């Protein structure tokens, strides 16, 4: 997929993330729409620009977030790396891989965010974070995974009908 296409597409995803998805919390956790979308893209075998899409998506969310700049980009790059490793080694059960990468991607993202806030002086109890933020976020990300994965797969089949 063209890298130019990533700018409007992921820009829209970032706006949806901030304006809609972030307003629908489960306990204190919220879904990370951008993470789920980037992982679904990275797991498609026809996509060769996953790294670039992750950087663009990460930058968009970093611009919108008050966390130190680069945290989301690093998190998304880690998740994309994991997705690409799994994609090359396991050639079936793509959707199960999506769930697995979403799980680890959310954990990466929250671990880095937690560390950044801890270094900034925030007093955040780890057990509270796991119970009230991370676990609900994982559940919400899992709920988004299936529709997003199917949507991305369908779009790519439309774009590359010969595949």
């Amino acid at each position: 997929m063209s890298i130019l296409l990533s700018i409007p597409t992921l820009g829209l995803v970032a706006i949806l993330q901030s304006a809609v998805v972030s307003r629908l919390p489960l306990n204190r956790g919220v879904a990370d729409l951008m993470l789920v979308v980037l992982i679904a893209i990275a797991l498609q075998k026809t996509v060769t620009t996953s790294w670039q899409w992750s950087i663009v998506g990460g930058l968009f969310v970093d611009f919108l977030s008050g966390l130190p700049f680069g945290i989301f980009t690093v998190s998304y790059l880690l998740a994309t790396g994991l997705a690409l490793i799994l994609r090359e080694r396991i050639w079936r059960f793509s959707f199960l891989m999506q769930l697995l990468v979403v799980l680890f991607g959310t954990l990466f993202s929250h671990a880095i965010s937690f560390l950044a806030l801890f270094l900034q002086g925030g007093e955040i109890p780890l057990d509270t974070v796991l119970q009230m933020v991370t676990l609900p976020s994982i559940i919400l990300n899992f709920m988004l995974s299936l529709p997003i994965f199917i949507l991305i797969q369908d779009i790519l089949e439309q774009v590359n009908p010969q595949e």
Partner: protein
Amino acid sequence: MNIRFPKSLRIIALSLIAIGILALALSGVFTSFSRWIVSPLTSVQTWVSLQYQGVENFVSASQDIREIREQNTALEAENARMQAQIVELQQQLVEFEILSALLEFARANPEHQYIGASVIGRDPSPFLNYIIINRGSDDGLRRGMPVVTQNGLAGRVVQVTATGARVSLITDPVTRINVRVEPSRSAAVLAGSITGDITLEQIPQDDDVNPGNLILTSGLGGNYPANIIVGQITSVRSRENALFQSASVQPVTDFSDLSIVLVITNFEPVDFSPLIPESGTP
């Protein structure tokens, strides 16, 4: 033999016969006879009439159904338009109520100047309690300006772009605000948390604070103007050996449903950093 009567006599005879028949009919002699004759006629007439009505309905029904369908379509469109209008009016009513309350707040606190802003998003990270508003430096917003709702303090502007700004809410985990408790006037520090709850810390052990006491900004620290209501104490925790008491606070602002806020534009936060001695300075 053919007997011929005069014409006048025939007329008289026919008249008498007619009168006689009428008299007999009026007296009811023909009733059973007429019933016997009319009943089959009525039945036949009813059957014919029903068949005719059926044919007439069949012919005219297609015209009626078309008209009814057209009316139904028009009514459905009208209904949809009215439903959309109701939703729009309900939204406008909610906005109007919020704006009225904000105006009331602004009138009650005339020492400040305000700019109204809509909440257009929240921080993508669940670790931060930030909102994004649709006013920025083009509208005169600057970093550090306090943000209030019709009920009380909401937070303060931490980042500004030309057309938008990010506001750190008082529930954010890294927020620390100097406040005082009324009526005891005890000084304390308000702290946010990852759970969205806010607590009151560093209340001197001897101070008399109780559930129901009001929390207002003290103005100390220079980050917020004084006397803005923040919340109400719900419970107090005090241990014998501890230096300070702590308390749970119910904020006056409902942070889950923020849609419009006011930014106080005539407040300049005080920067104390030049007064803080650097490490190694005597």
